[in-house]
């Protein structure tokens, strides 16, 4: 019986489809600037849903002045109010989309609605609202976000890094304060460090170095700290990198070797060379890569190992050089 109803509904929908496509095309041209205010207002009363959907699609597709124009039109048509309604009353997926799009509306009502959504029952909606606020530079204080979204405890998504990076664009000090706060969970600290890593602020290097030295030796955060130190390419990261080249955990050793290469720590050449005989492939691979990054001295050491190292080290050295097009 339900199937019969569904099939009938589909037949009706099928008949209406072509009319809908034509209507969509017409609305699109009006929204793209071919229609008068009166026409748009009339259509928004006739088919508010279709006009709403189309506006949202366009807002998400374009950038710059055109987007501002669509947002202005959508606001006049009351679409922001509809989105705010959906953000409260919709299903989870509807609320997420509403939050994402509302971030583009600059008015205070939308910002207030998004802030209220930070306490939504769904963690996905909470994070979407936070991302939308951060993207439009309207995020509440970072400390408050960490608490309300339970960042680093129940919410451990990689999107935390995107969130903090968006906030750090305008409020770097606030994100940096997370690193120094002992109450902030380690995953948030790691995300904050990654977010700030892109800023090129070398004053962070000693801070990250100290955090790495104090981190749980087998924790998930430690490789992230080491990678950031590598990306800074600053010698102030040497103590942590040196310490963790001898870590009992393979992925920490691999991350330290990678960082040593990126920072060009020549003094660690022989340690890296010894790592070509490591029991774990990733460590051998990263050590070889790091030696190549050291330039001529590193390549010379690789060449020597390729000739007279242990079998495992020989293979690592020979193939690393071969990948670089350098004969062993």
């Amino acid at each position, binding site marked *: 019986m339900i199937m019969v109803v569904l099939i009938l509904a589909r037949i009706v929908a099928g008949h209406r489809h072509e009319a809908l496509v034509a209507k969509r095309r017409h609305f699109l041209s009006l929204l793209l600037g071919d229609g008068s205010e009166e026409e748009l207002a009339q259509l928004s009363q006739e088919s508010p849903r279709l006009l709403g959907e189309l506006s949202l699609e366009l807002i998400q597709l374009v950038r710059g002045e055109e987007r501002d124009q669509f947002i202005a039109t959508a606001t006049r048509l009351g679409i922001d109010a509809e989105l705010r309604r959906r953000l409260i009353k919709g299903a989870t*997926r*509807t609320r997420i989309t509403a939050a994402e799009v509302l971030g583009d509306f600059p008015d205070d009502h939308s910002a207030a609605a998004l802030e209220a959504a930070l306490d939504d029952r769904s963690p996905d909606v909470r994070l979407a609202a936070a991302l939308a606020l951060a993207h439009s530079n309207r995020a509440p204080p970072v400390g408050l976000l960490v608490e309300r979204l339970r960042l680093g405890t129940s919410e451990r998504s990689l*999107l935390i890094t995107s969130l903090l*990076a968006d906030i750090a664009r305008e409020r770097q000090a606030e994100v940096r304060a997370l690193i120094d706060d002992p109450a902030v969970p380690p995953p948030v600290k790691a995300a904050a460090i990654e977010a700030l890593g892109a800023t090129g602020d070398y004053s962070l290097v000693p801070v990250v170095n100290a955090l790495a030295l104090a981190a749980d030796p087998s924790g998930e955060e430690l490789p992230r700290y080491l990678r950031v130190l590598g990306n800074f390419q600053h010698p102030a990261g040497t103590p942590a990198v040196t310490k963790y080249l001898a870590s009992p955990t393979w992925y920490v050793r691999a991350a330290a070797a990678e960082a040593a290469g990126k920072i060009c720590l020549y003094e660690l050449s022989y340690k890296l060379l010894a790592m070509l005989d490591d029991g774990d*492939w*990733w460590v051998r*691979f990263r050590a*070889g890569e790091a030696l190549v990054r050291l330039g001529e001295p590193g390549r010379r050491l690789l060449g020597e190992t390729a000739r007279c190292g242990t079998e495992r080290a020989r293979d690592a050295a020979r193939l690393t050089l*071969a990948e670089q097009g350098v004969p062993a």
Partner: protein
Amino acid sequence: MMDIEWSGWAVASAEIIALVVIGTGLLQIGFYIVQLGFAGLSLAQRPPVVRSSQLWQRYAEQAPPIAVLAPAFNEEVTIVESVNSLLALHYPDFEVIVINDGSKDGTLARLLGHFGLERVDRYHDLTVQHQPIRGLYASPRLPRLLVVDKENGGKSDALNAGINVARSPLFCSIDADSLLESDALIRAVRPFVEEPEKMVAVGGTIRLANGSHIAAGRVTSVRLPTNFLALVQIMEYLRAFLMARLALSRMQVLTVISGAFGLFRRRLALEVGGYSHGTVGEDMELVVKLHRHMRDLKQEYRIEFIPEPVCWTEAPEDLTILGRQRSRWQRGALETFAKHRDMLFNPRYGRIGFIGFGQVMIVDVMGPVVEVVGYALVPLLWAVGLLAVEYLLAFLAITFTFGIFVSVATLILEEFELRRFPRASDLIILTAVAIVENFGYRQLSNLWRIWGMFQFFRKKQGWGTMTRKGFTSAEPSPPART
């Protein structure tokens, strides 16, 4: 009806057998109803099915690199189109690793010639076992493509070589003759971004391309096939993916991620020794090994199925080939079940031991036997006067009505939540198929599964000869299991 005086023990035995048949049937029915509930809940609460551009905006920055592993054996005719389609995937950071598994035709030559590849050296892992690699080929013009040429060892062996050569934290195993939707990777990676520390593996939906229009390695227009066997398989795939896997994933007891499309954490796949050799159900076995490994480590983890990422494959349209495929799937399930039987109802393995393995036991191990025994026993008991006609009719009515109910309920879920079949006529045809398949095809399918059990007990190895039409031309290759 014969008028025979049956001794007490014969009657008692018949009653016990009948009770086992009815009990198992009820258990299956109960489990299907639970699955339907969970599938409906999961679909209703899934994240929005948004446009690729939105997904890109949301996840691209944090999406980890992926190595797409495509094993190829004698794929000369379609390999170039398949690789072109893979290279056109929309994902921020990926590489395509084609593993030529000792093809006897011109697969390698076609790849090298068309893409202008040259022999290269690349330092790679040797953690998992596979047949020797004869050479690696790449071109600076196509930095995303790497071809591994190795000696023949089968699909699992080829995938193991791919895992060793891959350098990304995630790998995606696919069939070289399947077609991935261009945004399949960015959709599938979502759980790895959202729960990076727990996520172990993610499976996506496989759909049948029989009847659909395909151009340049993409399904351009979804159509139903005209072949009855292909139509029935569309219903089977709907039930398998939209109901069973979605529900099992929701319960966190998923035991199969299809070999045609699955995303795995490379490090963990290496820790469990990669794909096992000497089994035809290597995809199921890898997932079970991952469950076991994570439970043994006492670590929180998740293995998910998500309905959106779509991989298109071709279903057999010939009874012999289909029968061979189904008996092989059955054999694969039994091999995995037997190998890991200590997990069944073992408290150490929690819900995967009780619900996941319990489901495999009821549906895959006991299901076909009980159903066939039921079909044979009921008329037999009736013939010797131990069963009333009303019971016979009631048994058949329940069996068929429930079979139809499950299929139609899956179709309803499809129509409400996904609406992937474009025309109303598709729904009419599929509804008819949901009814018709119960009379003949269902029984035949059980016989194929019984044959698979027989092969398992005879310890038969190998895939048997499989023939595929190919999306564009005739082609031999093993099909995807569901």
